[in-house]
């Protein structure tokens, strides 16, 4: 069963094509990551799934049915720009959003979530008294309090500290364990790599990646070397077979030219300096993202 299915979807704004002929299929029960540079069409796609924006052409199906209000009610949506009624009390606000979503037994759910996200002491406080991190957690609860079967989260980890990031991450994975489908957009590539069953990348309105992490990496092959060596990146620049060096300070990521031999590269490095580690790996999602959307590809 498909949670979401988009077929040849096109959406333009004043002549600018925001989403171009997008076809996408999100299996039920999966965690699907949407990545892409700012302005590439992620939010527009999510808004079309929520029926907030209407596609110019193409078809969108939710749980194998055309978009309908009952279908939308099965989705929890957290937009990129957070918005809460500042003068409402936390519990009242969550109850309001839960009931607006046709949620059952909302009051009990609200209490459970407040307990779980450590917001019990703030339940009767007004939203305007909360910190940014707490507001974000409240926003997350507002999204999930109706027990949706599909959750759309537009950049859910932005602005969260590591502790709260883990809290939200655990909640997402628990949702999945309970059978729900989660789609989230993110600029945090490592989070996408670690959490997502499938990754979808959109660039300038076009789908450029779609699949599991390993299938995406397989298309690039093992063309990356991670090196820890004395003297750092400067000794790697002019080695034959090295296409690009990405310097992380303590470690360098080297992209090899097609057909290059990693052992020759290792030998050359060892002639120049001492090497403490050398791994031949598939490119990271971060690297793939940059290859597609970075300056070298003529992107942003």
């Amino acid at each position, binding site marked *: 069963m498909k949670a979401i299915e988009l077929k040849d979807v096109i959406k333009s704004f004043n002549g600018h094509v925001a989403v171009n002929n997008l076809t996408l299929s999100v299996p039920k029960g999966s965690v699907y990551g949407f990545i892409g540079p700012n302005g590439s069409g992620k939010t527009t796609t999510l808004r079309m799934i929520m029926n907030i924006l209407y596609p110019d052409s193409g078809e969108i199906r939710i749980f194998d049915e055309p978009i309908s*209000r009952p279908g939308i009610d099965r989705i929890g949506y957290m*937009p990129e*720009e957070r*918005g809460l009624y*500042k003068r*409402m009390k936390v519990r009242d606000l969550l109850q309001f959003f839960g009931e*607006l979503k046709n949620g059952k037994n909302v009051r009990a759910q609200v209490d459970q979530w407040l307990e779980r996200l450590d917001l019990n002491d703030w339940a009767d406080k007004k939203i305007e008294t909360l910190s940014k991190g707490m507001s974000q957690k409240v926003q997350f609860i507002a999204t999930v309090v109706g027990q949706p079967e599909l959750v759309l989260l537009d950049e859910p980890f932005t602005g969260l500290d590591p502790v709260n990031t883990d809290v939200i991450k655990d909640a997402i994975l628990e949702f999945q364990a309970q059978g729900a489908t989660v789609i989230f957009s993110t600029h945090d590539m490592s989070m996408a790599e670690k959490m997502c069953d499938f990754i979808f990348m959109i660039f300038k309105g076009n789908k450029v990646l779609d699949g599991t992490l390993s299938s995406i990496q397989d298309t690039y092959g093992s063309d990356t070397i991670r090196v820890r060596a004395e003297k750092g990146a400067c000794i790697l620049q002019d080695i034959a077979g090295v296409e690009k060096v990405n310097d992380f300070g303590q470690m360098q990521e080297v992209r090899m030219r097609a057909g290059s031999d990693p052992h020759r590269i290792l030998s050359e490095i060892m002639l120049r300096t001492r090497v403490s580690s050398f791994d031949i790996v598939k490119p990271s999602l971060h690297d793939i993202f940059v290859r597609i959307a970075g300056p070298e590809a003529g992107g942003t």
Partner: protein
Amino acid sequence: MRKTLKLATREYKAAVRTKGFIIGLVLAPLVMGGSLIAFALLKDRVDTKDKTVVIIDRSGVLAEALIEAAEHRNKEEIYQAETGKKIKPAYYFEMVEPDDEDPRAQRLELSDRVRNVDFHAFVEIGPDVIHPGEKSEASRISYYAKNAAMDNVRQWMSWPINNHLRKLRLADAGIDESEVEDLFYWVNVDGLGLVTVDEATGDIQEAKRASEFEAILIPIILMMLLFLMIMMSVPGMLHSVMEEKTQRIAEVLLGSIKPFEFMMGKLLGGVGVSLTSSAVYVIGGIFVVRSMGFEEYIPFHVLPWFFAYMLMAIIMFGAMAAALGSVCSEAKDAQSLTFPSILPAIVPMFIYFPVVLEPVSGFSTWMSLIPLFTPTLMVLRLGTPEMIPAWQPYVGLVGVLLFTFLFVWAGGRIFRVAILMQGTPPKLTNIFRWAVRG
């Protein structure tokens, strides 16, 4: 519908549970009726400083009579009977000899003395004032003061002067005043309504005495109350939508409800707030008027129309205000669009006076059938004692209903497109395009 009501309930609670609502409830009528209230409170606070007026009596027959009348007034009219407190200024008249050689120089000298506050004013009585005939210049009475147009002394002296002139003219005609005692008796024309029949008993009911309060003040109060309700809710609607858009609440809500439900929820919440406010004013007003013994003046037959038109007006103007609020991305956009959003409700305020004076004239009828003006002007007309043709309020209501549907429909289309747009300043062409094309 359930979601719309859910949002409307939230909007209603958010509005009426604030201190601002209570304060607004008290302050709004004070602001709107401030001048009337101030007039009522301050009407007895007159300047009781005595006033002296100099008379140049070229006729030689009026000054004495005027001085005598002023003395009588100062003795009988300026003190409160029960307390003896002075409540009006005394008027004193002093005669000066007319300067026949250079009257203009005399007028200038007296004017300078008025400027120096030596006395309040001076009055010049022409020589032929008893028998004016063709000689209008010589028969004139001229009053010179800093603000002669609004001068109480000038207004008061007309009666004693004319009264004495009539006596002098009678004497000249050889008629003894005592033989025609009723000569100066002034008869007023009483204003009455129409005679009716008691439907229960069949008895003829005497006509009610007509009053300005009933003819003008009651309809104006009803109309102003409706206008007040519009003013309390419509600009607030625009700003509330703009805030929810700029604070990004709108998109969160749109994840659960349709844009049209969103707009209707806000509108119904606004209607609820207006109904609450108006119910407080109407019930409170009825209570106060009854306690003052003026129950007969309460226009109960107009109240259903009042609430029906108010409901339509709030939805009609509110829908457009919500749509305009949705195109605003910042506070200054909202400020510039607030006036256009309430303009259709303000226009009837410029034309209400001829309407209340002639509620069944062609002008009044047609203006009150223009749907944007109908709520306020039809309530105004219905509040007068005049019999408005029975079909007109119904036709007016149908027109308002159609316009309300049109505004809600167009507003909903604008709202849906504009609510998620950020950073685009509102342009009239865009607003029309969104309304037409969606």
